[in-house]
Structures are given as structure tokens and as C-alpha cells.
């Protein structure tokens, strides 16, 4: 197996998560840049929805348009972002993306929403992006490695405390949907990133929107990210990145050979790992190197 001569300069939560779940899948996706051809309907839908909500918030809170005008502006953004994409998914379409926007605003009317975007000096803190240096040097360039994150909004909850806000579109909001965020490193990393920019947050608010055949469901969970949890996350992140570098130097990317191979409908690299000759299946993949500081898609 060819070990790439380069190592990523930027790490994000998805990369760490995949490395921890299965170093081999990390190697395939982030070192070799492999992915299945085509656009994921789930990523595209979620990304268009997030852009629509961000456009709505700018129009309503910053430009002070009435709700209906702000919704029209957000709809224009979603239609433009959706572009030429065509999918055959049973529930996720351009129409349901617009429907999810309308239903979200009806469920959380902005005039009375307990969660509002932080606005300082005419800047609205939606689509918060960051890339921060870590105390680990790149094994080739010797530059500090960067940790990147992007979340939907830095908000103010009940008019007082600052909060990380992220919306998640999903197929269903079951009883356990809210439990998955309690320790989720993605959000602890966001809390660290916000604090580094002077915005220490009190909590993380995750809003789920389920896209159903007969409508939309809504759920909101609020999770704490105290200082000790952020410190523990950062320590774990650095340990994991050091293991990434050691694995890259060693050139052997261990396989999980367990539940990571079948979670979320099956690992995208299952065809490679179940073949004695994975190179024969490489034509089923395209090379597209991931850029955590670039587009979310």
C-alpha cells in the first residue's frame, strides 16, 4: 500500500473521528483522498438548509426585514445553492429543503425565539469558521498543524449566555437522538474555537429538524461544555494527532474490522477491505482531497 508523502496540514473533527473509528478509513479518505463519485444528498441538503437559515438570520436580525421578506431572501439562497443537483431520495429534495426552512421559522418564530444570533459592531456571528494553530508541528513542513471548525451560529440564549448553535437535518428524531451530542467532540472543539476568539460559551444548543414524508419534526437539546471537558478534549485531540503522525511514519493503517465497518449503512470503503485485491476496485472511487477550511461539501 502506498503511503502518501504528505500529511494533512489541517485537522478537523470529522478527520479525528474517522481516524479513531478506523485508521484505515482515515487513510483512504484523508490521505489518499478517495470518495465515491457524486454528491451525497444528505450533505447537500444539510448544507443548503444551513445556508438558507444563515441568509434568513442575516436578513431578519441584521438587515431588519420582516419575517416573510427574510424568508423570501432565504428561499432565493437555497434555490441558488441547490443548483442543478438532482436526487431520487424519498424525502430530501429542493422542495422539502424550502419546506424545512419555512417549518423551522414557524416553529421558532424569530421575534420570540429564546436563541438569537450574537451581533457585535454590526457583525452577525453566523457561519462561524476558525482555523487555529496546535502545539504539534507538521511532520514535513514543520509548520504548526491547524485545527479547523465551522458551526452555524454563535448565539445568545435567553438574552444572557453565549451558546454554540448547530442545526442538524435528519431522517428521524427518535427518543435517543438527543443523547448523541452529550460528549460529541465536534461541539467541544467548537467551544474551544469560540473561546480562543474571546467568546467563552455556556453551552451548546443542537436543533434537530427531521424531514418526514408528511411534514417536519423539531427537537432541541442543550449540552454543557465546562472548562474541564474542553481541556480533556484538547488533550485527547493532541494524543490522537500524535498517533496519526506516528501511523503515517510507520505506514501501517490499522483496520477496525468491527462495527465501524457497518455503521451508517456501511463504510464507503467496504468494497476495498472485503477484496483480496483492493486495487481492482479503485475505479469505483474518485480522488477529491478534503479541505476542512474550504467548503463543507
Amino acid at each position, binding site marked *: 500500500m502506498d503511503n502518501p508523502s504528505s500529511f494533512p496540514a489541517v485537522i478537523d473533527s470529522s478527520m479525528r473521528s474517522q481516524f479513531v473509528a478506523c485508521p484505515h478509513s482515515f487513510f483512504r479518505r484523508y490521505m489518499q483522498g478517495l470518495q465515491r463519485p457524486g454528491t451525497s444528498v444528505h450533505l447537500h441538503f444539510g448544507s443548503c438548509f444551513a445556508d438558507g437559515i444563515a441568509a434568513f438570520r442575516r436578513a431578519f436580525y441584521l438587515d431588519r426585514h420582516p419575517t*416573510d*421578506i427574510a*424568508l*423570501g*431572501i432565504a*428561499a*432565493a439562497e437555497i*434555490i*441558488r445553492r*441547490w*443548483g*442543478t443537483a438532482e436526487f431520487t431520495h424519498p424525502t430530501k429534495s*429542493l*422542495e422539502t429543503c*424550502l*419546506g424545512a*426552512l*419555512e*417549518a423551522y421559522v*414557524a416553529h421558532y418564530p424569530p421575534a420570540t425565539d429564546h436563541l438569537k444570533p450574537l451581533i457585535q459592531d454590526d457583525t452577525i456571528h453566523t457561519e462561524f469558521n476558525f482555523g487555529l494553530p496546535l502545539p504539534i508541528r507538521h511532520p514535513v513542513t514543520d509548520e504548526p498543524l491547524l485545527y479547523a471548525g465551522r458551526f452555524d451560529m454563535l448565539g445568545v440564549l435567553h438574552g444572557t449566555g453565549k451558546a454554540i448553535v448547530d442545526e442538524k437535518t435528519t431522517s428521524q428524531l427518535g427518543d435517543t437522538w438527543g443523547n448523541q451530542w452529550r460528549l460529541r467532540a465536534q461541539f467541544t472543539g467548537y467551544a474551544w474555537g469560540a473561546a480562543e476568539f474571546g467568546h467563552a460559551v455556556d453551552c451548546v444548543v443542537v436543533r434537530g429538524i427531521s424531514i418526514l414524508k*408528511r*411534514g*417536519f419534526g423539531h427537537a432541541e437539546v442543550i449540552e454543557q461544555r465546562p472548562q474541564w471537558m474542553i481541556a480533556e478534549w484538547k488533550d485527547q485531540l493532541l494524543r490522537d494527532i500524535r498517533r496519526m503522525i506516528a501511523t503515517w511514519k510507520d505506514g501501517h493503517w490499522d483496520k477496525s474490522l468491527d462495527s465501524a465497518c457497518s455503521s451508517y449503512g456501511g463504510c464507503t470503503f467496504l468494497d476495498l477491505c472485503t477484496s483480496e485485491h483492493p486495487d481492482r476496485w479503485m475505479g469505483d472511487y474518485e480522488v477529491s482531497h478534503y479541505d476542512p477550511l474550504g467548503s463543507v461539501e
Partner: protein
Amino acid sequence: MSTTNPDPLAKARHLNDLRQRVLAGEDIPPEEYREIIADIRQTRLAAAAAPVRPKAKPTKLNPDTLEPL
């Protein structure tokens, strides 16, 4: 506000037509986007107001005769 469900096919055609015009670079009046949202809102409200049909219970059958019990 009326809660009549707009014709879903006509709505889909309208949305697709709007999308094609956006992709072609046409300058779309803001009212058209608001109309789309108004249609979508009407559909949601109509669905919420519609009575939910109870699911039919499966009939228990006699396993020998396959007649209802």
C-alpha cells in the same frame, strides 16, 4: 388564512421553473420567492389540519381456515 392544499404538481412545476430561471441568471422579483414560501406554508398548514386516519388493525385469522376469527 386558507388551508387549502395547493395542487402539488403545479407547485412542483412552479418551483422547477423558478430554479431553471435562477440557474439561467434571470433577475427574479423577490415576490416570486415569497409566493413559493406562501405555497409551502399553505401545504404545511393543510397537512396539519387534515384529520389523521387511524391505521387499520390487522385482522386475526384462523390459521387453519384463514377465515377471520
